[in-house]
């Protein structure tokens, strides 16, 4: 049995706890949070030890692994503490506030033989796994242009209470929402060679951006666009759409559907010339326990498998997390270097 603890018991912390608590090889024994309400109920209803200090939790509980689901600003400190106690670490996205923190974590991991993973759950989503394998097979030929769009009705009021509206805590649309889209670029296409034309817009938030557009350039001539907006009430829930045009065809995908166009009969099995269409309902691989989406269970079960089988996490390691944090830094720097188009002061100052 692997003994685990969860640091940060918000929306993702409770999801991870629920999923791992049903894993046959896992015993969750500790929760750490700053809220008295959470701690009291964790003791009463979850039968775990509750801590206000992650230092104390890691120092006393002898944990095999830790799930870090705090506000982003705390990720580096908690993860460093976990590494120092030789605990395997799963950290929510984005990995850290800046690449320097990420580089330090990787330095600390050297020679440690610990499993490390970042919670970019879309990498474990059935539809995007399909897209990844299609792109890797070269089926649509040389990539020419692509778009990643992320939209959602996440922030629809002028709000400032939560850490998600403080830039210093890792709030804002870029870190907290669009990081999934940035990571998808890194995962599906690779890191861009240049980031240009970034614009941040504020819609409701006083000190962070609510919408982003950015252009990614590649040395081979390919171009990508990221469009993200967490204040779009026309969406019922957060959505992610990927579209890629290659010389031999096109892929369009979201959480439910994928469409693939081939100009000629493709070499990959199961597809034909012209439009091909597939649905999540047709390709979803079952998981052992389902909360909020297949990908959440799949990423955690993969993390546990890596620990049990003593293998390195290949799908979304800290190296991948750092790569995404570096792209985020370039977007931030590019966007902060110009004024947003609606005349507001940009969010970088």
């Amino acid at each position, binding site marked *: 049995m692997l003994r685990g603890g969860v640091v940060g*018991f*918000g*929306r993702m912390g*409770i*999801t991870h*706890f*629920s*999923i791992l*608590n*049903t894993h046959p090889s896992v015993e969750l024994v500790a929760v750490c949070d700053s*809220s*008295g*309400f*959470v701690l*009291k*109920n964790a003791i*009463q*209803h*979850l*039968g775990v030890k509750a801590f206000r200090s992650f230092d104390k939790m890691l120092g006393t509980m002898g944990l095999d692994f830790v799930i870090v689901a705090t506000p982003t600003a705390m990720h580096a400190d908690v993860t460093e503490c976990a590494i120092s106690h030789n605990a395997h670490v799963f950290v929510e996205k984005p990995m850290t506030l800046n690449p320097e923190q990420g580089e330090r974590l990787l330095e600390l991991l050297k020679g440690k033989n610990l499993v490390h993973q970042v919670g970019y759950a879309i990498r474990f989503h059935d539809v995007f796994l399909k897209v990844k394998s299609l792109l890797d097979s070269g089926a649509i030929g040389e990539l020419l242009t692509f778009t990643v769009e992320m939209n959602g*009705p*996440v*922030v*629809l*009021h002028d*709000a400032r*209470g*939560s*850490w*998600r509206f403080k830039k210093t805590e890792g709030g804002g649309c870029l870190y907290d929402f669009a990081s999934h889209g940035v990571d998808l670029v890194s995962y599906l296409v690779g890191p861009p060679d240049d980031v240009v034309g970034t614009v941040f817009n504020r819609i409701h938030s006083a000190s962070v951006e609510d919408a982003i557009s950015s252009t990614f350039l590649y040395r081979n001539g390919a171009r990508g666009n990221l469009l993200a907006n967490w204040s779009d009430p*026309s969406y*019922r*829930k957060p*959505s992610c*759409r990927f579209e890629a045009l290659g010389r031999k065809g096109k892929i369009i995908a*979201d*959480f*439910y*559907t994928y469409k693939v166009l081939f100009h000629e009969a493709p070499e990959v099995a199961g597809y034909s010339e012209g439009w091909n269409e597939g*649905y*999540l*309902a*047709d390709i*979803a691989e*079952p*998981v*052992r*326990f*389902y*909360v*909020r989406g297949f990908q959440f269970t799949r990423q955690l079960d993969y993390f546990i498998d890596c620990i049990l089988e003593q293998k390195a996490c290949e799908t979304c390691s800290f190296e991948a997390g750092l790569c995404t944090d570096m792209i985020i830094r370039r977007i931030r720097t590019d966007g902060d270097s110009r004024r947003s188009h609606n005349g507001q002061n940009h969010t970088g100052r």
Partner: protein
Amino acid sequence: MDRIILGDNQFFGINHMSEEKGRSLAMRFRDTEAIIRVIDIAYACGIRAFMFNTHDRVEEICDHFRANPGRYADLRIYPSMPYAHKYANAIHEKGLVGALNAFVFSGRSVRQVATTVIRGGRTVINKNMVEVMKLLVDAEMRIFRGLTVPAVFLQNIVTDLLLGFGAREVFVEFARHVKRTYGADPAFNTMNMPALVDFLLASGIENPIVCSSINKTGFLMTPSRHAYERALAQKPFRPMAMSILASGAISPKEAVEYVCHLPNVRAIVFGASSEEHIAQTVEMISSNWNIGVSTRKLADAS
């Protein structure tokens, strides 16, 4: 228990096959009147039972029912709560405790809640999860005041989170509260039916109503279709089937035949928005279950 229930996903732009289709449904049903028209069509097809998530527009639909008591005298509502995205967004904006405070203490319609800032000493901080759960149920049940509610469903994300927690007391107290306060059966939506049924039975919740995806392709049937079929055949509970079409992966005829011939399925919740589809589905289920077609008493045929 009603055997055929019309669900509400189609009214609120929820479509698990296509976001575009979802959006076009949301456009079609942007006026509550358009929703009422479909409800009236379902009524004409013999349906008397409706499942509503506690979406912020459901209050307007319920106002219409309350304003026309003669017309909807035999209407039965199966609420499913909470509408998860409402809470998810509030938690995002206010944090967990802030969101709970807003929902529990606002006493306003859910539409207004998101913009409510709670001041003063009233807070959930000093309460435990069970007390908060009861306050949330009461807040959501205000939407359905004065209407007939045979069973109250715990929405699947919450059910499955709590199932993962193993929070036995919360399930037991939810069941007791719903029964005592509203005279309704406790009921549960889930994506993990076999595990939930075992857990509820082991917790002493007898013959529970459990609504889950049941379809021929095994979509959203965790851990497997086989485990579902075994639970249906062997466990003492009242199964209700949803997502029978697996988001369109199966033809309606095949879908209905599969579900209707499984042992012990007590009810089917389905979503449709045209007269043709509603009438067809009612006809198919009725004939497969041999419960008579489109009579005014159809919904009582259990």
